[in-house]
């Protein structure tokens, strides 16, 4: 119960992490890279997989993040670094949270519901945040089939309607467009940072960094498949299809007779997504627990404060989503690969602190 096994970690990287890239990221990449969206997404995945590899290398030291940082930066430095990581994770949580809110409002309701319809998510998130992060390992075991069935079901229902010829000619958008697509999708790639608070709790097995990275890339393969089907189904109008995974299967012929059976797969993925969206908050709270103590009172305090602030932000930013998205995907995009990379470099090659 105290550790995350190598298998559970691989399940997270291959099955859970990809679901966070299915809501608005596809249409965002299409906006920049058009039919070359696969290249942009693949580049983002490759970049993030390098950092995932480095984090898993750091995990081999089998010490908690706080212990590792204290060795390099001293106690005060470690606390500052963990606080910064927590802030980074809360920032990273913002876009997935807001896009999930939009998804819920548009896909789960016929008419626009109240702003508060998404509020129960924060109760769920608070419930998770209060519990130790290592419990998530078992959750990934049980979420794996939901994710696998969700992905497989949606692809099966939509592949028939896709014209993969729409992805041709390859490279027609140009390198600049592909690079812009990559840059603007970086804010969805912070999975390496989610692993950092788990350091010291990951069961070490032979060649785990390599296996973990390959699993992450396999998950990336599934996302690329969804992106290919997405562009194959919608082609040029794909950039207007905001909730990609909930739209791609609506042209399945059986829908007319059986109703929206694809919703069962959408529900399965939304269940996984709920955990994925809560995870940055959970990881952030874990950083605070490691830095400043994890007594039940403190853990409760961090949990309430973090979820309270995020709930307030979700209400305040209700009419400013586009501005928020632009800020995250354009202005602040560089932070997402840079900050975890910097932190992991400190862990791997930083000098030992004098008092360590």
């Amino acid at each position, binding site marked *: *119960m105290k550790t995350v*096994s190598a*298998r*559970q970690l691989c399940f997270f990287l291959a099955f859970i992490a990809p679901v966070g890239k299915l809501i608005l990221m596809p249409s965002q990449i299409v906006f920049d890279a058009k039919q070359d969206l696969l290249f942009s997404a693949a580049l983002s995945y490759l970049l993030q997989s390098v950092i995932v590899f480095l984090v898993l290398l750091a995990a081999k030291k089998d010490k908690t993040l706080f212990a590792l940082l204290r060795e390099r930066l001293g106690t005060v430095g470690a606390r500052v670094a963990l606080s910064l990581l927590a802030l980074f994770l809360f920032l990273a949580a913002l876009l997935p949270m807001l896009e999930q809110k939009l998804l*819920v409002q548009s896909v*789960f*309701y*016929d008419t626009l*519901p109240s702003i508060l*319809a*998404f509020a*129960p*998510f924060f*109760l*769920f998130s608070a*419930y*998770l945040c209060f*519990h130790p992060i290592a*419990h998530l*390992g*078992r*959750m990934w*075991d*049980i*979420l794996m089939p939901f994710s696998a069935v969700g992905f497989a079901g949606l692809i099966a229902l939509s592949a028939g309607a896709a014209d993969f010829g729409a992805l041709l000619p390859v490279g027609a958008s140009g390198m600049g467009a592909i690079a812009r697509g990559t840059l603007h999708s970086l804010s969805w790639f912070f999975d390496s940072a989610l692993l950092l608070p788990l350091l010291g709790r990951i069961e070490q097995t032979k060649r785990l960094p390599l296996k973990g990275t390959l699993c992450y890339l396999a998950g990336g393969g599934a996302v690329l498949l969804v992106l290919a089907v997405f562009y194959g189904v919608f082609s040029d109008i794909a950039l207007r299809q905001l909730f990609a995974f909930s739209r791609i299967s609506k042209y399945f012929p059986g829908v*007319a*007779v*059986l*109703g*929206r059976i694809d*919703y069962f797969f959408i*529900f399965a993925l*939304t*269940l996984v997504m*709920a*955990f994925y969206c809560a995870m940055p908050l959970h990881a952030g709270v874990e950083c605070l627990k490691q830095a400043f103590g994890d007594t039940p009172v403190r853990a409760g305090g961090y949990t309430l404060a973090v979820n309270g602030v995020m709930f307030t932000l979700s209400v305040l930013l209700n009419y400013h989503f586009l501005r928020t998205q632009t800020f995250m995907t354009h202005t602040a995009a560089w932070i997402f690969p840079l900050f975890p990379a910097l932190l992991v470099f400190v862990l791997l090659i930083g000098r030992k602190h004098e008092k360590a």
Partner: protein
Amino acid sequence: MNITGKRDQDAGAIKEILPAEDILTFDFRAAGGMDFTIVFTDPITDKELLGVLVVRPLLHYEGAATVEAVKERLTSPEVRTERDLDKLAEEVLAGNPVLLFDGADEGIIVGTKKIFFRAIAEPSTDVAVKGPREGFIEDVKINTSLVRRRLKSPELKIEFLKVGRRSATFVAMCYLEGTTPSATVEEVRSRLERIDIDVIPDSSYLTHFLVHKPYSLIKQIGTTEKPDIFCAKIAEGKLGLIVDGSPIALTLPYLAVEDLQSSEDYFVPQARASLTRILRLLAMVTAIYLPAFYIAAQLFKLQLFPIKLLLTISGSIQNIPLSPSLEMLLVLFVLEILNEASIRMPKYVGMALSVVGALVLGETAVNAGFVSTPAIIIIAFSGIGLYAVPNLIEVTSVLRLIMLLVAGSVGTYGIILVTAVLLYLLVTTENYGVPVLAPFSPLRRRDLKDSLIKFNLTALDRRPKTLKSPNKRRLS
């Protein structure tokens, strides 16, 4: 306080400890002139047996007035001695008479307890078409004999413990030495010894003291009424508890998947067994979620219905005065009342009640326009689905209500979030070091062979890894 050796005084002392009207004494004189007194509890002592095994042999007794000599004369196979008057009084209360005579430094306890029990019959909650039909009854001795008959192994240990200050209920702890982890045996024994309650009327009372999360909704202890299932679980490496006065035996550690299994699964081809298990799971999931999704779809997302079904539903609900969630809650409420009433009522009335409930009430309510036909169909289907997994009804019926309330207020997203919390609760619940949701979480590939999919018996060569049994091989 110890026995004095003075017959009248000792009998009086026991009567003083037990000042009840059903505690009687019987005095008689042997041929040799020696006087005896028997102290016994009237309704629970077999007086005929007492006469044959104790009084008749002693009537002609002319030997020495020593405990050993008198003991030899008795023809009862169960004879013990005790010095302490309090302990002698306990035995009298348990139905075992105490024989006293002048000069005896110990009281003689004779095992002539009268045992009332019903015949061994097939339990109504766990009927099997194929396989053994015996079920536990309320007597712990008979129940342990049913277990012993199936496990004729010296490794089968049956430890008797007394629980309950006033009821002094016998609890038989059954396990296979070397197969059940000793840590589990130690912890259960220690938990049972620590129980300080006055009365244990049924095995369900014990569960509150044996689980690690007593307030959780999640079931944490297995139950069965069938000795064959009980023995199979013990042979897997679990520990069983049989409580005197209860036909329901407990097994632990509990795995959620065991309630999807039935004893019959092991007597039919594995394909059929696997199909039935999947069907049970689907029935349970449908029972919990169908009413909730119906409400959520009606209130928030009509697209979930196929168009023709939507037209049928809209036709049915047109003149219903209640909101969809209130309508569903009303039908569920009626179903639960009918269910409760039909279980408690005498059989004949129960049958009439079913007719009144199902036909008259349902039909009339639809005709009068109080409720719609789809609502009744959905609740009926959900009710049937719930009984596909009878051991989990206490949990699933509550979950169905929670889902219904959430669906009526938040819609499908609420159902998803409650499911997420439920999954989290399930994966984090463990008892005696064994996760309830194993072998699915944590994933144990080898143990999956007897989970939802059942492999051939020869493939189940090892005991479940999850149970951490020191004896790993089942089939050599």
